[in-house]
């Protein structure tokens, strides 16, 4: 161990990006809070503008910060150990995302297994059902809530099934792109990565279609249509935001590939984007099973 050649660990010089990022997050949080509060009080204010400015600033920060990192990487400042730090950092970030979705899946599970049946009088809650909501019938999907709001359920056949096929395929093409990168086949790499992006964009397109369908007068599946609509929109909505983020990552990677970045040995950013893509894919499979089918 001791005679091993030591590669020095790159500790970056001072950077102004983090403080820019902190200010941006402040603008987003404070702006969003003002915006939401104004919305509910039916007043108007500057919250929305502050929120948008914050988002613009965070994008500016990310571009600047990543440019620094990319140029450090291209000029060979990073050691193998540094690469490991990035990889581990990304893995734990994805784990934290898993736990974020776990909160919503947990809520879905609790609502289906406990709260809806209990409202219908299951367990030792006979009087809850009889006194508070005598007409309420416990069922899932919850199409008629205790206070009488009605809605319809989104079936799994059709758009959701197409989307499942699209995302699963995109995970495979992402893997082919990675294999091509490792074999240094730049041509196939561009094609497979490009195809992955196209599949991702198609998924997003169909998701928007599905939302439009849900929000139609025919389906009346709204965000506030009781817990079925709540869980449907929050789970698919957060997943959709993650797909969007993943797509942006992949597009950035595609342009970096065009510029000749990444080698078979050294391509952490590509790897991270592809991990992230596989992660959103797995979340979708869970969604498809628990939100749509079951």
């Amino acid at each position, binding site marked *: 161990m001791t005679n091993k050649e030591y590669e020095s660990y790159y500790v970056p010089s001072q950077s102004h990006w*983090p403080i820019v990022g902190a200010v941006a997050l402040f603008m987003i949080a*404070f702006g969003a809070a003002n915006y939401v509060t104004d919305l509910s009080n039916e007043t108007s204010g500057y919250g929305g503008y502050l929120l948008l400015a914050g988002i613009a600033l965070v994008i500016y920060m990310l571009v600047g910060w990543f440019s620094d990192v990319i140029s450090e990487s291209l000029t060979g400042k990073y050691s193998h150990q540094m690469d490991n730090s*990035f990889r581990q950092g990304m893995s734990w970030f994805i784990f934290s995302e898993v736990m974020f979705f*776990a*909160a919503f899946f947990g809520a879905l599970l609790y609502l289906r297994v406990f709260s809806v049946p209990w409202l219908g009088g299951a367990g030792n809650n006979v009087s809850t059902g009889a006194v508070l909501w005598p007409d309420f019938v416990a069922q899932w999907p919850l199409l008629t809530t205790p206070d009488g709001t009605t809605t319809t359920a989104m079936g799994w056949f059709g758009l959701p099934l197409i989307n499942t096929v699209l995302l699963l395929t995109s995970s495979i093409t992402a893997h082919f792109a990675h294999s091509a990168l490792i074999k240094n086949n730049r041509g196939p790499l561009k094609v497979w990565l490009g195809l992955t992006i196209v599949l991702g964009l198609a998924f997003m397109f169909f998701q928007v279609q599905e939302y439009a369908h849900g929000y139609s007068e025919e389906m009346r599946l709204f965000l506030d249509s009781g817990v079925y609509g709540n869980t449907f929109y929050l789970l698919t909505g957060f997943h959709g935001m993650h797909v969007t983020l993943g797509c942006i990552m992949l597009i950035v990677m595609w342009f970096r590939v065009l510029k000749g970045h990444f080698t078979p040995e050294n391509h952490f950013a590509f790897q991270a984007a592809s991990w992230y893509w596989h992660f959103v894919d797995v979340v979708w499979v869970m969604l498809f099973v628990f939100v749509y089918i079951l």
Partner: protein
Amino acid sequence: MTTDVIEQDSHDEHHYDHKMTGIKRWLYTTNHKDIGTLYLWFAFIMFLTGGALAMVIRAELFQPGLQIVEPDFFNQLTTVHGLVMVFGAIMPAFTGFANWMLPMMLGAPDMALPRMNNWSFWILPFAFAILLGSFFMESGAPNFGWTFYAPLSTTYSNGSTAFFVFAVHIMGISSIMGAINIVVTIMNMRAPGMTYMKMPLFVWTFFITAYLLIAVMPVLAGVVTMLLTDTYFGTSFFDAAGGGDPVMFQHIFWFFGHPEVYIMILPAFGIVSTTIPAFSRKRLFGYSSMVYATSSIALLSFIVWAHHMFTTGMPLFGELFFMYCTMLIAVPTGVKVFNWVATMWRGSLTFETPMLFSIAFVILFTIGGFSGLMLAMTPVDFQYHDTYFVVAHFHYVLVTGSLFSLYAGAYFWLPKWTGHMYNDTLSKWHFWCSLISVNLLFFPMHFLGLAGMPRRIPDYALQFADFNKWVSIGGFAFGLSQLIFLAVVIKCIRGGEKAPAKPWDGAIGLEWTVASPAPYHTFSTPPSQQDIDNADQHEH
């Protein structure tokens, strides 16, 4: 090997820009010691802020009747006091310790992701600006308790929910990034030859704590998001009319909340497991059992959350399951207390201020642990729930537990941080004043709770008056005593007896092999196996 200070590799410095001066140094820094200092000062300022809120609470409760604040403002005070102390004082203080000490203990040049480290810190002041700023807004500050139970925070919110939710969101981002940095630093930055089971126990406890943070902070983000949509966008996660359940809020919240409790105590275990061996001049008794006990506590923390909600409606099986699991935690915790006592057993003890705080920690934390056991028993909890007994319990584990360990650690490493010894006499005053006043403050709360005084009320029945008077006097005295600490720290930064590289003869670990104050950059090249082994030995 008292003077065996490892030369700093000065020609390695071209990696870094030179230390900037003025405000830019602190805004742009990527240095773990600078960021550690920022965290520690921020935490202390928040501690004084939260303390000031508590002083108003205790002034109102000094005698029965309403004299100083309106009930609604009282609720805002208790809520923000809790949030500030948990998320603003205790957690950032531990992150400050992690930043300062982990790279030095591991023989690493810095934290693994230094720029992200800066980001995680600087989010915090902004988050608390939003939270504390809400005092001055039309809605007022959050008034639904630090646990923000629905429907208090949804249907009956005073309009502060959105500000609260988004402040918590960015706080959570900060915590998660800080925790990822800690995990990656420990996994990836250990000096060659420092295997996991050779790491100081301090490092182990932060390692496990960081995992807990990564696992549960996102759940907090999830639950506040549902709270936001329930309050402003018409969802009904926590509203029975739409098929939801307010009790579900408590389940998800406490799934975060119970591990959160251990996030605030495991690092404390790490600190006293460092100081007690140093002043007992013995190795820590049962190192590996400490590692396993800490891990067990962390794992158990995920399956005990509903002991916070025995009275809020759960099937009987749930009550029993959570009661038994909770009691199981006493086993690994008992292992720890046993090991600390066994470390002191037949050691050559001296009672410097860090040791005084550590011993007080062991005894008083154990009292808090015992009251926790009482609360863990479901039928008994039916009486204690939401009384001052609970308040007494968690202040014993958080104040005489976490906070006392922070003081132990601060006195222990102040010479390393500042290069000066702290003023011993003042520090002893700080300890004894704190010790006496803190018990006057929190011990009678047990009796108040057993007699039935509910928590979170601005007024109370006459029979509670005498105890409350003494509690308030203890509170004011404890609050004032903390200013002594501020004086000690400022004096210690400005001057004082020059500290040697290793001011404590019983201390072990790599941080004592570098000069005091620790140079701006340490271990730019990792220490050799020989250095690691030497640093791990007692002198005699």
